[in-house]
């Protein structure tokens, strides 16, 4: 392989997309992992996919319709969970199954080959456009800024939503803001990572960071670092080995999680008592 490839426009775009998705998705992931709402990524990404398909089926801009789809899902999740007597998991299940049904229906309505439609499902970081990168850059900057501004509020909501509310923190607005930011991050990453794989880029780097620190600020930094590492290492491996980039990025993030879990100081601290007893007697 010639290293000249690194100077190609598409490779520069891919590296920029991997960097920005590697920041935006894991930052949202920290909130999702600590609030135990892991299914949220799957749910919103399928709604974004359904939105993109609606754009393709009816001649609209698929990125715009994906954004609308994900925002509808994100803004529906909160009220369904809050007012509909359902747990957030049930609300996510309802939105997920509805999005999946709509996706299959819309896929059948798209005439001719479905290559572009399926591109939104699998994504391809090597085909991202300047427009995709500007969108990703805007979303990554917005998410980072909001987390920096509302760090105390976010920390309170992560700890306990009712207690945060009792302390005067606008916990409901923060929770809905999280859902909307998830929708934005997922939509912006759709072209690069794909609706199917973006979930892993949300969860894996954040879950890896969760293994390594008790400090929320450090967790955000570590998660973004692991996200960037996953994106760039995945891009490099896939280019060298000629493998699908999105899949290699995700497998790299999974490998980072496995290493973090293996060497987690928290794991050593929380060994079950019976294991500690048996190791003491040995």
């Amino acid at each position: 392989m010639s290293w000249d490839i690194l100077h190609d426009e598409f490779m520069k775009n891919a590296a920029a997309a991997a960097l920005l998705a590697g920041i935006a998705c894991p930052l949202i992931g920290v909130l999702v992992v600590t609030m135990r709402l892991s299914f949220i990524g799957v749910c919103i990404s399928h709604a974004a996919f359904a939105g993109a398909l609606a754009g393709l089926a009816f001649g609209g801009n698929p990125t715009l319709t994906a954004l609308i789809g994900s925002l509808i899902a994100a803004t529906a999740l909160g009220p369904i969970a809050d007012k509909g007597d359902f747990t957030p998991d049930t609300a996510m299940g309802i939105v997920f199954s509805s999005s999946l049904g709509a996706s299959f229906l819309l896929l059948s309505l798209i005439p001719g080959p479905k290559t572009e439609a399926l591109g939104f499902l699998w994504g391809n970081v090597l085909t991202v456009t300047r427009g995709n990168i500007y969108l990703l850059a805007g979303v990554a900057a917005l998410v980072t800024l909001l987390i920096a501004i509302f760090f105390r509020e976010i920390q309170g909501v992560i700890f306990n939503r009712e207690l945060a509310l009792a302390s005067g923190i606008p916990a409901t607005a923060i929770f809905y803001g999280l859902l909307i930011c998830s929708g934005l991050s997922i939509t912006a990453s759709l072209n690069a990572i794909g609706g199917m794989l973006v979930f892993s880029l949300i969860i894996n780097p954040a879950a890896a960071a969760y293994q390594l620190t008790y400090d929320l600020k450090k967790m955000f930094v570590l998660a973004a670092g692991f996200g960037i590492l996953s994106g760039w290492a995945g891009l490099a491996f896939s280019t060298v080995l000629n493998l699908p980039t999105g899949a290699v990025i995700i497998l790299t993030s999974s490998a980072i999680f496995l290493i973090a879990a293996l060497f987690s100081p928290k794991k050593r601290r929380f060994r079950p008592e019976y294991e500690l007893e048996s190791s003491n007697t040995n």
Partner: protein
Amino acid sequence: MQSAIQVNEVVVEYDGRKALAGVSLSVGRGETVGLFGPNGSGKSTLLRAIHGLVLPSYGSIEVLGEKLSPRTLRFIRKQMAYMPQFIQIDQRMPISALEVVLMGRYGHSGLFHRYSHSDKNAARAALEQVDALHLANRPFGQLSGGEQQRISLARALAGSPRLLLLDEPTASLDWRSQQRIEKLVQAACKLQGLTTLIVSHDAESLAAICDRIIIMDSGRIVKESIPSRLSEDYRNYFRGSEAVK
């Protein structure tokens, strides 16, 4: 005595079921009042309604002379602190004891501000008050149940409240930790002249801390008692109500 909390004919409904069925109550300034009764009697709902966490479908609540409404809620919440039952959180949760206590200062700083030095000093003073300053930098999830409740009490006290609402503060704690929390609550009430409302299932614990105790059943106040007569009054009421059934 000037009242700190005035509850008038409050009704709270969940799914059409009345959790509070027309409750009226007055708590004087500096008084420590206990709410006692069986599960589902409406004790915690009353506490949550006073804190504005649930909205009454009928009736009104006044706190420190201000009628509770969306407009006054922020001001009122600044004056009171709520300590819930033992909070179940993941042991690996990335939040320290000091950060939990600082949450109690949120009302003093508000949106778009960082915690100031005086907030941090107040949080440390509250930790010292509950003899937990040495736990400040420990991850909250790693602390024992008793230590976590002391941190929760410090969080409640850190905001320098005039009113303290405690919901089962000693539930699921061992006897020694219970005793410690009770003594700390008593000391804080005395030292800061707080008006305190405590929900508990533990008659002995309430009798030790409270000036008077309200007995609740089926969303209503059924009896008012004093610490020395609580067990007797409670037994008599329920013997009577069983006889009626």
